[in-house]
């Protein structure tokens, strides 16, 4: 049976389409959904496509923050002014799929899918991003770590959609490292996103593919924050970097699967976290 497809041209129409459709499935870039449909693992009865909703497109600056539309593509994230405002997110975008995939895949889609291997998630976690949603109950705002509740599970309610993601523009270095078994176009085995906020004097480390949800390595962050000379933005004690990696690994709960082993993931987290901190603050 062919599903009905609604293609709303405004946010109001999208909300209405979601309210009236029977068991709607939300479509953005389609890089997850179409694969699932073609594989026969999902057969939606109705589809609401968000890709022509103008309010969900692009990004804009809002004071100390940028507001990223749910339909912002990775191709838009990885280059231009936005890439210099949120460099870790841009680097994460560059690791995703192929150029063709990045032209279609969206930030909102990555969040909505909420895969443990979602490439943007550790960056958004490190940035303390907030997720804005709209639905029958109106508009809601959730921290990203509350938005992602489990493996491919989110706090989205029925008929609710993501409208935007709000991230801070921070002064300080940002790093994103992704380990995969291939040098491009690969599902991550481990990800580490490091954000330094020189003004707020904070170090934030988000980790991905090492737990059901993205993880913040709080103990590692505390160690680093206590070790930084904030005037020079450097860590002088050379033992801190290794310890930072070890603490990061301790904050994870990885599994053995067909892509890797828990032991390797834990080890790789320590290596990536250490390297990220060395690049940023040594």
């Amino acid at each position, binding site marked *: 049976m062919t599903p009905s497809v609604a293609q709303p041209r405004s946010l109001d129409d999208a909300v209405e389409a979601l309210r009236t459709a029977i068991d709607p499935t939300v479509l953005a870039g389609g890089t997850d959904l179409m694969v699932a449909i073609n594989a026969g693992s999902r057969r939606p009865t109705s589809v609401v496509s968000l890709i022509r909703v103008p309010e969900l497109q692009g990004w804009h600056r809002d004071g100390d923050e940028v507001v990223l539309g749910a339909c912002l593509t990775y191709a838009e994230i990885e280059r231009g002014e936005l890439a210099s405002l949120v460099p870790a997110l841009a680097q994460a975008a560059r690791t995703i799929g192929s150029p063709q995939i990045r032209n279609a895949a969206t930030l909102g889609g990555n969040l909505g899918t909420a895969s443990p291997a979602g490439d943007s998630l550790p960056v958004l976690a490190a940035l303390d991003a907030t997720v804005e949603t709209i639905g029958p109950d109106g508009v809601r705002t959730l921290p990203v770590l509350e938005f992602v509740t489990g493996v491919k599970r989110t706090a989205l309610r029925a008929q609710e959609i993501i409208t935007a993601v709000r991230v801070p523009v921070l002064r300080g270095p940002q790093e994103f490292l*992704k*380990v995969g078994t*291939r*040098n491009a176009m690969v599902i991550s085995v481990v990800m580490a996103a490091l954000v330094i906020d020189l003004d707020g004097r904070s170090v934030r480390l988000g980790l991905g593919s090492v737990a059901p949800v993205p993880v913040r390595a709080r103990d590692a962050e505390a160690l680093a924050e206590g070790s930084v000379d904030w005037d020079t933005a450097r860590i002088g004690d050379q033992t801190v970097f290794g310890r930072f990696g070890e603490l990061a690994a301790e904050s994870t709960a990885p599994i053995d699967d067909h892509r890797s082993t828990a*032991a*390797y993931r834990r*080890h790789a987290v320590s290596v990536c976290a250490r*390297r990220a901190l060395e690049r940023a603050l040594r």
Partner: protein
Amino acid sequence: MSLTGERVRGGLGESARRPDGGPKVAGSFVFSSDLTADGMVWGSILRAPYPHARIRSIDIGPALALPGVHAVLTAADVPGDSSYGLEHADQPVFADDTVRYIGEAVAAVAADHPDTARRAARAIVVDYEELEPLVEAEAAITAEPIHPDGNVFAHLTIRHGDTTASGDVVVEGDYEVGMQDQAFMGPESGLAIPDGDGGVDLHMSTQWLHVDRDQVANCLGLPHDKVRMSLAGVGGAFGAREDVSMQVHLCLLALHTNRPVKMVFSREESFLGHVHRHPARMHYRHHADKDGRLVKVEARIVLDGGAYASTSRPVLVNACCFAAGPYAVPNALVEGWAVRTNNPPCGAMRGFGAVQACFAHEAQMDKLAAALDLDPVELRLRNAMKTGDRLVTGQVVTGAAPVEELIRTCSGWPLPAEDPEPDPMTLPGGAGRTADGSRLRRGVGFAVGFKNLMYSAGFDDYSTARVRLEGGVATVTCAAAEVGQGFVTLAEQIVREVLGVDEVILAPPGTADIGSAGSTSASRQTWMSGGAVERAALAVRDRRDAGEREPIEETYEYHHPPTSPLDENGQGNAHVSYVFAAHRAVVDVDLDLGLVRVVEVATSQDVGRVLNPLQVIGQVEGGIAQGVGLAVMEEIVMDRGVVRNASFTDYLIPTALDMPDVAIAALVEEPEPGAPFGAKGVGEPPTISSSAAVAAAIRAATGLALTRIPVRPQDIALAHRDSTKLA
């Protein structure tokens, strides 16, 4: 020579253009998945969800009840032989009472829409009793049989020279090769059209039309000429299309519905629906004298053949015949087993048994070099096989064997310079930007390999071709399957060369028009079908030159010299000819993350004669890509008989960022006696030793033993961490 006295364009030795190149680039080439027919319905196969189970009952009622369903067939509906197979017909068309691997066909459906067909297949109710799967190849040798024919497909012992001999220096090791997939581009697809007279026309992407046809007809219970097979556009093969996949199911459905039936496997179904490269476990012991001359090679090779026979026996024969590598080995004791398990069936893949053995014998040569404190290249030179030497099967190598020249030219190729400011994308980890320059190590590894050309061990291998000359245009009819390798180009080049005509037309390959061309495998079509086309063209030329009027038509059946099976000691003249290649890999390794970037693979290859330079380069580069894949990423991950990564999301093959630069140090042109134009097949050698060379380079970079391919990041990173902790 042409009649005008000028050399014809597009003849042998030129990089003639592929006749199907333009359409393939433009997207207008018709692949088997593009076929369509009026009144066509769609087929789908229900596959078993368990690696080992008894089928208590099958209820097709719910599937038949769905609107749009035309037929639902099970084992009870197969009118002829219930099983098929290339060598030994032990693979059921549909599982009857027992399922022996995950994905085994249980039933087939035809419906008016592919989605309906898939839903109908899922609606069939099968009551399974799960059984304990037998998944360890070694255990299978003595385990309770999981098939009436037993668990041992083949057991072979080669005793060569004095098997009690021993050397001054002995090195020993255990090696393992994972299950590689051919990962071709176009999933299996085909179209069967009933002829209204009890017969059927089958259009399929395959590697060997006539033997497919025979197996299909046997299962349909039809005379062979009632099944006509035509080659449909093939999207790659690499061995995976040697075995029957959907052929019988398609024809059964077409005859039952009396409608054309089309089927296209999904990618997941493709992974489950064709054979893979045999996983191998090998134990080796090399003996050498103090000067590094090989005294004896001992090997025990166990191949996991999976649930059904396919080509397990000849793959094992190859693994054992070439177990010692392209070296002069006076004494050898090789024992090989190919066994049945509840893993997916394994069969042909580029390199056919030689790849697994090469990984082990080349690791052993490096180990021996280290024990002797000799340069690994020097050790290989001291033992390099040459014309007149004997294989471990006792057979004398009578043709070209330029092993020393391959080793010298390949090892002498300048090493790539280290880039002081590399693009981070080209470092280990690539786009993930994980690399830390201070933790990268470069390694160089070397390997040499060889295998046979064409079918061996007494098989009557032949190809048939017809050439017709009319109005200055030559038409070639040959059933050789073009699977991307470029036989279509070569056939045109041969005819242009022999007849001096510009225009050559290739008739569509089919079983109704001509006899067998044999399989597009074993690097054999250039020699076999090339030979048949040449001889047919020569016969036409003779008649033309004698003044006969056109049309002139000649058909030629080309046979290679006969071979013999191996005797009880694994001795005998089993092969016609051999082909050799050397590879030198340069890798950068991230010691802490275990990520690898293969920087360059240099190669020298024994080719006999280059007939089309561009096609030779294409085969060399493509084969190296597949070899690099096996070395660092390509593996079907099995978990107690269950395939865990039946998709291109998780079955990783090299991307452009993983593919090394390929440096062709030499294409050694020593014409092969008896070969048409002196040319050897070039398709397989690039895969045989390239994996071994990459593994050797990673060992050199890390100092780790790394006895298994693919080498996984954790194999490097965790071993390196543990070794530095100890130190």
